């Protein structure tokens, strides 16, 4: 069973790696890059929404902090991309720890609202702290990453960079959720009272998952900034939190692949509807509503059916 899953993961990665050979032109490849970045954002949200049952509406806050931290240290302190990414991880981790610590004691919808408030505060700070963030004008001329003299300036190379980072993060999340630590996340989702009684420090575990999730969202933000080379406070707008959530729910929460599929649909779909900006949100909502009604476990439930039950990893609770 486990081996089967490994093979399908490798095939999937191979398909993704080969995609740009079919999809050419810098514009189309840009869409692929956006997909991979969204997949990372959705992966991060899925860790807490899908595996732990915590609904966060504030991940755009971490996405934005990731984008701004990484961009600012490159622009103002002369950092190159990799040390900037490391610093971003630390900064977002600390902020995630703080936000998690204070909001985790709130339950259900109150938790969701507090995370939303957090991301709005982040957006307001970005808009008003003119001397550092340059306010609504945003930042530009953010450098593209380089690696031993190789510059990721082409769409093709940047796509592979994002896919490589996404694959590493995907693997880390896989390891976490198939370990006893991840089982404790799912235990909390399944039954909090029982989790207490078997010795799980539920509050601490939730903060930990939230922090890890925030850090992954921060990486997505950083990759976003260095791809577009221009960012504005809107990176912490509600749009990114909501889109991330929709991707997780439509793709299939609590499955590894679901968010990747969700991200694919919601980056390709808008392209098909590009001419009609107004229609975009309507179609988004429609797809979300239809999925929730007809496929409560997301598109992954169709895939799972066609794979048979074997796709279920032995060590992983659902």
């Amino acid at each position, binding site marked *: 069973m486990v081996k089967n899953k490994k093979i399908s993961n490798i095939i999937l990665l191979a398909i993704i790696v080969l995609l740009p050979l079919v999809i050419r032109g810098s514009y189309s490849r840009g869409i692929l890059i956006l997909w991979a970045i969204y997949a990372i954002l959705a992966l991060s949200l899925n860790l807490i929404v899908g595996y732990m049952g915590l609904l966060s509406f504030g991940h755009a806050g971490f996405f934005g902090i990731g984008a701004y931290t990484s961009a600012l240290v490159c622009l103002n302190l002369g950092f190159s991309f990799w040390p900037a990414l490391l610093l971003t991880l630390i900064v977002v981790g600390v902020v995630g720890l703080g936000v998690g610590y204070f909001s985790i004691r709130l339950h259900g919808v109150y938790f969701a609202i507090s995370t939303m408030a957090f991301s709005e505060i982040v957006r307001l700070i970005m808009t008003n702290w003119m001397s550092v963030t340059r306010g609504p004008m945003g930042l530009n001329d953010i450098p593209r990453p380089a690696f031993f003299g190789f510059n990721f300036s082409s769409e093709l190379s940047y796509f592979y960079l994002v896919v490589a980072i996404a694959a590493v993060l995907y693997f*880390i999340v896989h*390891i*976490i959720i198939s*370990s*006893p*630590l*991840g*089982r*404790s996340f*799912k*235990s909390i989702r*399944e*039954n909090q*009272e*029982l989790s*207490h*009684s*078997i*010795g*799980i*420090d*539920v509050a601490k575990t939730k903060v*930990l998952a939230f922090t*890890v999730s925030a850090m992954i969202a921060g990486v997505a933000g950083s990759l976003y900034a260095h791809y577009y080379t221009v960012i504005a406070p809107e990176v912490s707008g509600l749009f990114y939190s909501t889109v991330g959530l929709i991707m997780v729910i439509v793709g299939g929460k609590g499955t590894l692949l679901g968010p990747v599929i969700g991200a694919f649909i919601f980056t390709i779909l808008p392209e098909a509807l590009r001419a009609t900006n107004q229609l975009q949100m309507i179609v988004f909502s429609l797809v979300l509503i239809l999925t929730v009604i007809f496929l409560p476990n997301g598109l992954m439930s169709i895939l799972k059916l066609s794979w048979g039950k074997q796709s279920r990893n032995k*060590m992983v*609770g*659902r």
Partner: protein
Amino acid sequence: MAIMQVSNLTKKFGGVTANKNVSFEVKENQIVGIIGPNGAGKTTCFNSICGFTKKTEGQVLFGDKDISNLVHFQIAGLGICRTFQHTTIFPEFTVMENILAGMYLKAETGIFSTIFKYGKIVKQEQKLEEAAHKIIKMVRLTGKENSIAKNLAYGQQRKLAIGIALATSPKVLMLDEPAAGLNATESKELVELIRDVSKTGITVVLVEHDMKVVMSVCDNIIVLNYGEKMAEGTPAEIRKNEKVIEVYLGTETD
């Protein structure tokens, strides 16, 4: 030797006094029963001991350690695990995953060792699974390892709940009405299970309405009435106690 000592336990919910000055001792490897009419404060007593509710007054010693001010997960960590009156399992997990989840405290769960020493975690998982099979056998669920818990029959779910608690390797196992809703055969099986558990050296405290179960397994029985301890003694003594017969046993039909 007393493994657990409860002194002057009092719990008030606003105007309701659910427990009043309850004191008792649990000796190592005994099976102790707590009985009493509905609303007598049995579950509240469990909740106070296990740190699921903040007691108004009183002290709980575990060995010679004062655990009065600890909370649930810390108390579980010391080796006291409880089950709940309502059936409490991880519904979407398989039976095996339920038991493995119960082994949380024994497993390596640090974030860094999880990510960087994954090979070790996988090996550890195999050991845990072996131990889990033993527990599954003990609670008589062999063959059901891969069934999703919520699809089990009611009686099997009750056994699974006990299995989860056993998976924590407790020194003291506290069962809140384990026989509730079980048929005669299942209750008999439960009695055997409790005896098996006791044989492994685990101390058992149980709240129970089913007198057959209580009288046949318990070494010592504590009777609560309106939150207060009314009597204590061996099953034979409790059977003869007139006060107990009057308020409680007399109303039992079987």
